[in-house]
């Protein structure tokens, strides 16, 4: 261990304190809004979820924040699913690039639907897929439905949009419960 004399110590301490003032000038490393997914992965997932529950006269999966439900649950409750989702997205994007020369979210809606139908029926046979497309689709379908129809406390169904669509009486409007 190096021995410091008083002068060196004061210099080092001054430098240390001075350098602490630089901390506030550090900008956040990234503007990523997700816990598990990258912005690119999230864009693909949002496009997939929106085709499962598209917006019509009622909000769809995007407006209900389904992506945040999947992201949150993949981080907190089902960390093992992170690999499935990440592999699924990577495979889908690689396959779309090879067959359509575009990313999934850049394709038109009929093409996106056709691809998802093929995934559901397990009709896509390609070495580009690291996992079975059907497994990826089924897991995504389940999580999308849960995120859209479940309670907002789990991260999806923003502002109770699906409850409103279903005309559920929520929050329950009920007065006191007197004996008489």
């Amino acid at each position, binding site marked *: 261990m190096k021995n410091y004399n008083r002068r060196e110590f004061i210099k080092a301490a001054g430098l240390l304190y001075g350098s602490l003032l630089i901390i*506030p*000038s550090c900008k*956040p490393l990234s503007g990523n809004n997700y816990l598990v997914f990258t912005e690119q992965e999230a864009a693909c997932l949002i496009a997939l979820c929106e085709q499962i529950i598209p917006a019509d006269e009622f909000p769809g999966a995007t407006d209900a924040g389904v992506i945040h439900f999947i992201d949150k649950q993949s981080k907190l409750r089902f960390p093992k699913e992170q690999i499935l989702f990440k592999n699924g997205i990577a495979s889908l994007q690689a396959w779309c690039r090879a067959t359509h020369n575009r990313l999934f979210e850049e394709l038109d809606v009929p093409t996106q639907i056709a691809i998802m139908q093929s995934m559901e029926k397990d009709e896509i046979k390609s070495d580009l897929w690291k996992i079975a497309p059907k497994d990826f689709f089924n897991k995504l379908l389940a999580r999308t439905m849960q995120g859209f129809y479940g309670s907002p406390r789990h991260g999806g169904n923003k502002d109770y949009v699906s409850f409103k669509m279903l005309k559920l009486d929520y*929050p329950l409007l009920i007065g006191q419960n007197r004996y008489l």
Partner: protein
Amino acid sequence: MKKIVFLSLFCLFSILIVVGSYITWNRVDPDYSCAQCHEITPSHSKWKSSAHAGVHCIECHGTAISEGFHSLAEKSNMVLTHFTKEKTSDEIRLDERQILAIHRRCIACHQSEYAGWLASGHAVNYREIFMDSVHNALEKPYWDCLRCHGMFYDGNIHDLMALEDTSFIHWKIRDEKQEMLPAIPCLACHQMHTDNPVSQRFVTFFADSLRTSTARNPRIALYLRADKRYLRADKLPHPQMYNAESEISYASDPNTRLCMQCHAPNFKHQAGSEDDRTVTGVHWELSCTACHRPHSGETRESCAQCHSSLTEVQIKKVFEQPHCYK
């Protein structure tokens, strides 16, 4: 002797570094301190566009030492959670003690609103609500009371009250300290960090339009105890209401939607039943806040605001007419 001087200098420098860094951390723009952590990014962005953007984080949240041991333990836990990245909730929840601390900080600036609230029925404390023998004779306190009274209470109705005795006379609040706490604090109807565009001048001139304004979201929201989250007032439902078998119309503005969540009818949504105050007569489409002041609930001067030609006697006569189904 030299050693003692050296050690003293070392301690002095260490204290200076720690204290200096701590003060710097608390004083700089939150963009470069608090908001560096992803956990609070959504709250931070909402705060930046809110009316409170000029109020620094520590003014409401305090510092690591402002609440003594409680805040030190809480902030240490946050830091530990952030760096360990263990399974945890990414949503910040406040307990009742913290909610009431924020309530006191609201009061520090909003004195006028506080004065109104203090004069209103909403300033009730736990004792006045839960140990009201006249009410308890009609209804035993149960879990749903906490939906509107004591919505931030950290427990259930049996934690709050001793209800074992068959006679309502003996129903008591278990903890005497709880009795005098406000049961409907500011945060019952006001959500922190709500989405809102930054305020601009109301009048903006365009070539094809005389004036326009940016629509602002309501500043009120309902705290849903069951879900431990807020729902902005304009997103609350506008339930169908009935007078006997007939469906009736009533105001659908955010204020009315919020008020009726607690001033609620029975399960059949009958106007005037239970705590419902649905308006009837010529004022049927007016919002609750058209007549009631938002914080005090007063109505005394509201008639004259629209009907300035009415005399005191005439206003008194109007008051005698039924203005709601109750």
